Structures are given as structure tokens and as C-alpha cells.
């Protein structure tokens, strides 16, 4: 199969899968089989594209003209390849996890859930493979709209409020700033194609370039740069698999991916560095890194803490993009992968804890390591990866980001990265440590009985092992392994990113 065909099929297949899921709705086992099959096939298709991209080819396809002179077009370059690989691979893992979680948690409307999930993945792949800014923007908005039913899955008043914040901020920033910037770019240059070295060189004054860059960075609300970050904690009202894949991987990574893509292929690293239009944004990113970490520390709800941690980590990537040195961009690209594996593990664990013990608050999780040793161990490993300690993949991306800051001759940001690591230690590690070493709170007498009545779990002895459903554990095992593997074999990732910063 030619890489072009594989690329187009990879985007079309999840949509076909979504239709299949709808049709198979009445038969849950068949429906889940369709999801798993589609996810696996999609990943295999994406893998088909990899060899040619790694070899330096850029598979292209133009579908049709949307506006005169502007087509819906796709072109796979290394950065998009990385994003597509991560999104499609983790879709399989998340599907396995979802089956355990959604059934274990007795969620309703599961057919709708799996359908929109597939649509969201299709749009994420569309973003990854987009060949021009218009195509990217199209899928960016489809992703926003298709994840709305997932965020508001429970249909409660809280879900509705969060849904408003979610849609309001993401649509608002993208329409007000991003679309504005895109049309402005189009009137300046007459093209929106992603081009090596950018398209704005010599087309605009330094001031205009600075303003445009800010419009893009803030217009990409999915990157959650403060003060447009509120949607991310709001989205935590969704079922955990949604938080895991979409709000730790697909949606937020679509955001930072777009920032990187715009930096490299619309502005061009050299142009941005010479005009210096991105300097003040480095400080905004640094501020987001530190402030979000501090906020995370104060959150007792586990998912809320992870959400703020995500905001902080996303700004690593924004910082890498705005530093505009080769190393910082390499680090930013690698951090997309590293953070994806680390954070999805943590969210999986949060969901597993919820399903098995119905706990959402960190203060209730003392001593939980005895009942859920596997989950808590996985949480520890995921945390280590986010902190950036060996033998976890997170080390490499932080390493290159720091190198990038040094290359730009800005020690300040090396300091920020180090500080952030310390803050990560402070807000992540206590959770598994207390889980293992603190004494569990006195069991409430009614707890087990009530549990049985509500959810039909077999009563277990207070100090016995009570882990999450097997499907959840398998998924967690895979992502943990992924984090470790990325430490020992970061080379493919690194080589792809090298192509981005020094083409040919």
C-alpha cells in the first residue's frame, strides 16, 4: 500500500468505525469488537506511513478546493507522524481501558461515547496530517465539537456548566484569535501551505509577525496557555478514559502540536529568532509552568490535580516552541510523546482507583497501595516520568528542552525547568508514597455494605487486594512499559525531530 493511500485510509477508517459502532450499538460485545478492530487497523495504517516519512519522503494528497486557491490537503512530515503514531497507538490502549472502565463503572450511553471517541480520533489524525493551515483549522474545530458530547457525557448540571466553559473557551479563542491570524496570514502571503522554513519571510514587518505569532499561540486554546486554560480542569467532569486520551493526549497535544507546527512551518525557526517576536511568550509559558504547578499542589481532587499538571506540562512544549532553537524544538516534539505516555498512565490510574474504590480525593487515598498495589506502583512510575527521572522517557525531553534554553543563552528557563521538576516531585510523589506507607483510614462500617448495594462488588476484607478490572490493568501495563521503553529507545523519535529542525 502506498503511504498516500495509507494516510487517507487512516483518517477515513475511524469514521467508518464510528458508523459501525452506531450500528452495533445494541450488542455491546460486538460494538467493543468494532472499536478495538478499528483502532488496531488505524494504528497499523499509520505505521505504514512511517518508513517513507523516516526516509525523508513527504506523502501528499489534495482532496478538493474548499475556497478558491485553498484546498483541503494533507502532507505528512515528521512532527505530524509522531503525533499520529501516539494518538492512534494510545487509542487502542484506551479502548481496552474504556471497556473495563465503562462497564465497571456502569456508565450509560456507551454507544454514543465510543462513536464520538472515534470521530475525535479521526479529527486528531486530520490535524496531524494536515498539509495547510486551513485543513488543520477545519479538523481542529471538528475535534472541539466532537469532544463536547464526551465532556458532557453525564448530562448533569455540572457537566453542562463545564461543557459551556469547554466550548466557550475553545471555540472563542479559535474564532477570535486563530481564525483572525489565519486569514491575516492568507492576505499577507496568499498561501497557507506548511512549508519548510515558513511562508512569512519577507512578507511582513517584525511588529506584524510578533502580533500574528501571539494571535496564533493564544488562539490555539487547546495548548492551554494561561489565561486560556480554564477549559481543561472543566473537562475533567468527563469519564476518565476521555480525560486520559483526549485531555492528556489527543486534544491538548493537538493544541501544542499546532503551536509547534505554526512555529516551524508557518513562521520558520530562523525568522522568529531573528525578529524575536516570541520572547515575551517564553515568559508567559514559564509563568504557566510554575503557576499551574502551584495550583496543582492545592488540589485535593486527583483528576483536578492531574489537569493542572497537564497545563503546566503543556507549557513545556510551548516554551520549547517559543525559545525557537533547534534543541528546544526537538525537546518540545519529544515531550509530546513523553508526556503522553506518562500522563495517560496517571489518568488511567485515577480511573482505576475510582472504579475499584470509588475514591476521587487524594486525602482519602492513604494506604490505598495495600488494596491496589499494581495501580499505585504504576502511578509512581508515571510520576517519575513526568518529573523527568531515569529510567523514564520524560528525562530526554526535559534534557533537550534545557539544552535549548542553554542554546538560546537563557539560564533563567533552565532554572524554571528545574523548579518545575521539584514542584512535580512535591505534588505527584506524595500520592503513591502515602498510598504505600501511610496507614489506611479507619474503615467506615457502612462502606462495604453500601458498596455492595450500589455496585454489586463482592465484599472484600479490609486489607485484601481489590484491584480495578483486568482490562484497565492491561492498559496501564502497556503505557507504563511505553514510558520505560521510550527511555531506552528514544532514537526513532529523536531522528524524526532532527528532520524537523534541519530539513535535508
Amino acid at each position: 500500500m502506498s503511504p498516500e493511500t495509507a494516510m487517507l485510509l487512516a483518517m477515513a477508517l475511524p469514521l467508518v468505525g464510528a458508523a459501525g459502532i452506531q450500528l452495533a450499538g445494541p450488542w455491546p460485545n460486538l460494538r467493543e469488537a468494532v472499536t478495538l478492530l478499528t483502532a488496531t487497523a488505524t494504528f497499523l495504517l499509520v505505521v505504514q506511513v512511517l518508513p517513507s516519512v523516516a526516509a525523508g519522503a513527504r506523502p501528499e494528497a489534495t482532496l478538493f478546493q474548499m475556497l478558491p486557491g485553498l484546498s483541503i490537503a494533507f502532507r505528512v512530515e515528521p512532527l505530524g507522524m509522531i503525533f499520529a503514531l501516539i494518538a492512534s497507538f494510545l487509542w487502542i490502549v484506551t479502548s481496552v481501558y474504556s471497556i473495563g472502565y465503562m462497564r465497571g463503572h456502569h456508565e450509560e450511553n456507551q454507544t454514543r461515547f465510543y462513536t464520538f471517541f472515534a470521530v475525535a480520533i479521526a479529527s486528531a489524525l486530520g490535524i496531524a496530517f494536515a498539509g495547510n493551515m486551513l485543513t488543520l483549522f477545519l479538523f481542529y474545530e471538528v475535534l472541539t465539537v466532537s469532544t463536547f458530547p464526551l465532556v458532557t457525557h453525564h448530562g448533569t448540571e455540572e457537566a453542562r456548566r463545564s461543557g459551556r466553559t469547554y466550548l466557550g473557551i475553545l471555540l472563542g479563542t479559535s474564532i477570535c484569535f486563530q481564525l483572525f491570524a489565519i486569514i491575516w496570514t492568507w492576505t499577507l502571503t496568499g498561501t497557507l501551505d506548511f512549508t519548510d522554513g515558513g511562508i512569512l519571510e519577507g512578507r511582513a514587518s517584525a511588529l506584524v509577525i510578533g502580533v500574528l505569532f501571539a494571535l496564533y499561540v493564544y488562539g490555539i486554546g487547546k495548548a492551554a496557555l494561561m489565561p486560556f486554560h480554564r477549559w481543561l480542569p472543566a473537562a475533567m467532569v468527563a469519564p476518565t478514559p476521555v480525560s486520559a486520551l483526549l485531555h492528556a493526549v489527543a486534544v491538548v497535544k493537538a493544541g501544542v502540536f499546532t503551536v509547534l507546527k505554526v512555529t516551524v512551518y508557518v513562521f520558520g525557526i530562523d525568522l522568529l529568532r531573528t525578529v524575536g517576536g516570541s520572547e515575551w511568550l517564553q515568559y508567559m509559558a514559564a509563568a504557566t509552568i510554575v503557576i499551574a504547578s502551584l495550583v496543582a499542589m492545592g488540589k485535593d481532587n486527583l483528576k483536578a490535580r492531574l489537569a493542572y499538571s497537564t497545563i503546566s506540562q503543556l507549557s513545556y512544549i510551548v516554551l520549547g516552541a517559543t525559545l525557537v532553537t533547534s534543541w528546544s524544538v526537538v525537546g518540545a516534539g519529544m515531550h509530546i510523546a513523553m508526556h503522553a505516555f506518562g500522563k495517560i498512565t496517571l489518568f488511567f490510574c485515577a480511573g482505576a482507583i475510582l472504579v475499584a474504590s470509588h475514591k476521587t480525593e487524594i486525602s482519602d487515598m492513604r494506604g490505598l497501595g495495600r488494596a491496589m498495589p499494581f495501580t499505585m506502583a504504576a502511578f509512581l512510575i508515571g510520576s517519575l516520568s513526568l518529573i523527568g527521572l531515569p529510567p523514564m522517557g520524560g528525562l530526554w525531553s526535559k534534557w533537550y528542552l534545557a539544552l535549548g534554553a542553554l542554546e538560546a543563552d537563557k539560564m533563567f528557563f533552565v532554572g524554571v525547568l528545574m523548579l518545575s521538576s521539584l514542584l512535580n516531585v512535591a505534588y505527584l510523589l506524595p500520592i503513591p508514597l502515602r498510598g504505600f506507607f501511610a496507614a489506611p483510614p479507619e474503615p467506615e462500617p457502612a462502606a462495604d455494605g453500601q458498596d455492595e448495594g450500589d455496585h454489586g462488588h463482592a465484599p472484600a476484607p479490609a486489607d485484601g487486594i481489590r484491584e480495578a478490572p483486568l482490562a484497565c490493568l492491561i492498559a496501564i501495563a502497556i503505557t507504563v512499559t511505553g514510558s520505560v521503553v521510550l527511555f531506552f529507545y528514544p532514537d526513532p523519535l529523536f531522528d524524526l525531530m532532527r528532520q524537523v529542525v534541519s530539513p535535508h
Partner: protein
Amino acid sequence: MTSPHLPVLMVVLPLMSAPFCAVMRRGLPAWSLALVVTWTSFALALAVLTQVLDHGTIIYSIGDWAAPWGIEYRIDRIGAFMAVIVSGIGALSLAYSRRSIAHEIGVRRRPLFYTMFLLSLAGLLGISVTGDAFNLFVFLEISSLSSYVLISLASDRRALTAAYRYLIMGTIGATFYIIGVGLMYMMTGTLNLADLAARVPEVAGTRTILVALGFLTVGISLKLALFPLHTWLPNAYAFAPSVVTVFLASTATKVAIYVLLRILFTVFGKADVIHAQEIGDVLMVLALLAMFVASLVAIFQDNVKRLLAFSSLAQVGYMILGVSMATATGISAGIIHLFNHAIMKGALFMAVGCVFMRTGSVRVEAFAGLGRAMPVTMAAFVVGGLSLIGVPATVGFISKWTLIQAALETGAWPLAVLILLSSLLAIVYVWKVVEVAYFQPLPSYRGDVREAPLSMVLPMWFLAGCSIYFGIDAATTLGIARDAAAALLGNGP
């Protein structure tokens, strides 16, 4: 089909069939006749459009009387495009009308409805194709008078006052228009639009012509419901029978905008009044006011039909904003939005009509739980709503893109910012309805609510489908709009 008589047939057919509908005693035969006629008109309009695109402007003299004496039809790109919009919406809403009318209008009045519908269609089509200022007035009155009747046919008695108000305002508008035409005739001695265009520059500076321009602009602005001359519109749309709202919202104001384009650019184009007399600035300010004031008012409406009516006023603002820039891109933004807004608003009002049929109400509360009870209808509503917001892959995005591009090309970036800000207001009023439909449970007393009949769902989804299709593949429609704009500015094919 390349008969030279196509343009006139398209208008005469509905005009002549209308009396036949009037003498029929029952709804079904009248509906059948009207259905055949409207779809034939639509086919003719499409044939005329292809002919115009291939061979350029068609000139047709009625009864073979040459132009200054007889009436001339002159159909260029924009005229043919308007005819396609009007007859297309007419054909779809007629298909939609049978079940909807059966629910909303008494048996004895149904033939009257189809009569008036055909007359209104004939009038609007006539305006699109005629090349004569007085003939245009006649068609304007045919379409307006019949639409007053159409509105008053609703069973809601408030429709009578709404129709009466529209009658008064509409008549003032028409009178202003005819006074303007009279003054023009006095100064130039012709009523033919092409001749007027040739003779206006000689007398352009005179006070009489300026007064005529004032009368014409105000008169037409009343008809197209430009803020603050819009007061007739919200109630007329809110209380009219559902299908009448669909038809009028998608065609009547659009045709009035077309007339404004004709006057400003065809007749006064060489005199360049839009710059020389600051008409452009006046229109721009009013358009911006419409975009913001009407959108804000829409947010606070409890009646969904009224909400959409105010949204229409805001959308008229977008169209006029494009026109007021008087550049090729600006005018094409206005023209493309005529088409785009017609299809999305058509779909939205059809969805509201379906809801009215099943729940008996168009208040926001009536939408509670319909996301589950009427999934197909509500999905169409969501598509139309996303299009109003201007989400990519919908026609609304294409309009917004072109309009912002036009603003940036002229260096007016504050305008671009204002356009984007106002579209945020659309998110609020669209989502207000969507939230109720999907997050509130169906009240128990509405337990028997089910999906609308197929004959209503199909036209609705045809329009909703169009608003996605032409949002993804807009090269054709935007191409027509650009050529039409270039032709209006006098430098096109």
C-alpha cells in the same frame, strides 16, 4: 433546455398557476399543482443559471417590445443566482409545507395559502430577473402583498397584528422606492436600469438625484430590515406559519438586498455614490449596529422563532457590511452570505417547524428533551446552529472567511475584530437552545413526542446537507459570487 423563453417562463408559470390554486376547494390538488410549478421553476432557474454562466447576460424583451418602450428582462450572474436561491428554497419549502400546513392552517384556507405562495414566489423571481425599475416595483408589491396574507394565515391571532405592522412598514418602503424611481425618471427620462446607469453620471450631482438616492436607499432598507428599520420583522417571522417563516426568511430579505446592490452598483455604479456620498459609511455603521444589537437581543429571547428572527437581522448586518466595503471581495462576501444564510436559516426554521408540529410550541422550554425524542430534527438544528456560529465545514465559515478577508484587504482590521466578536454572540444564542434540547429531560406530559414526518425531515436535511456540502466545497458558489461582484463593479465578464 436552451429555449430563449426560459427566463420569462420561470416567472409567468407560478404567476399564472396561482389563480388555479385559488379556485380549488381542497388542499391536496392545490398543493400538487403548486409543487409541480415550483419545481419546474427551480429547474428553469438552474437552466438559466447555466446558460448565463456559459454565454453571459441574457436580454429578453417582453412581447418583443424593444427596451425603452417595452419591459426588458436582463439576467446576469447575480440575477440568475438569486433566481436559483429563491426558486430552490421555494421548491423545498413547498415539499415541506403539506404536512406542516395541514397542522397549522384550516382546511378551507389551504388553497389560499398555495395561491399566495405562488404569487410571492413569482414576485420574488420577477425582481431577480427584471431590468426595469418600475416593473421591479410591481413585482416587489406582488411579493409583499402576498406575503402579508401568508403571515396572517397563521392560527395565532397575534399574526394578524404582525402582518398589519409589516403591511404598514412594507408599504412605506415601497412608496419610498417608487418616489425615488419617479424622481429618477424625471431627471433621466427612462425606467430601464441599464439606461439609467448610462444617464445617471450626467446628472449625478443634482439635488433631485441625491434625494432620489435617499428615498431609494431608505425604502429598500425597510424591505431588507436593516437596523433600525427592522421593527416589522421579528413578529412577522415569529407568528407566521412555520413554512412561511422558512420561505420569507430565506428569500424576501435576500431579494431586497439584491435590489440594493442593483441600485447602488448597477444604476449608481458609475457615479460611485457609495464613496462620493458616504453611503458606504452609513451602511457600515448600521450594519455593525445590527450585528451587535440584534445578536444581543437574540440571546434574551424565549421564543426560538423570534430568536432566529433576531439572528437573521444580525446576519443581514453581515451582508450589508460586505456590501458597504464596496470592494470586489466585500461584495462577494455579501453575495455568498445571501446564499449561505438562505440555506442555513431555511434548515433552522424548518427544524423549528418540526418541533412546533410535535410539541405545539416554539418556546425554548418546548425543546427540552428533544435531543432524544426528535434526534434527526435536532441534529439538523445543531448543523444549522454551528453554521450560524461559523464553524469550519459549514457554509457560515465560508461567509465569515470571505468577509474577514475583505476587511483585512482594505486594511480595516478593527472591522475584522468586530466581525469575530459578534460571532461569539451567536455561540451563546445557539447553544442556549441546544443545551435545553440535550440536557433537559423530556417532560412527562410530552411522552408521545416523536420524530417529524419524512416529508418534512427530507427537505430540512437537504438544506442541512447543503450547508455542510457548500461549506466544504465552496469553490463553485464563491466563484459565482466573485464573478457577480466583479460584474456589479463593472469590471467582470
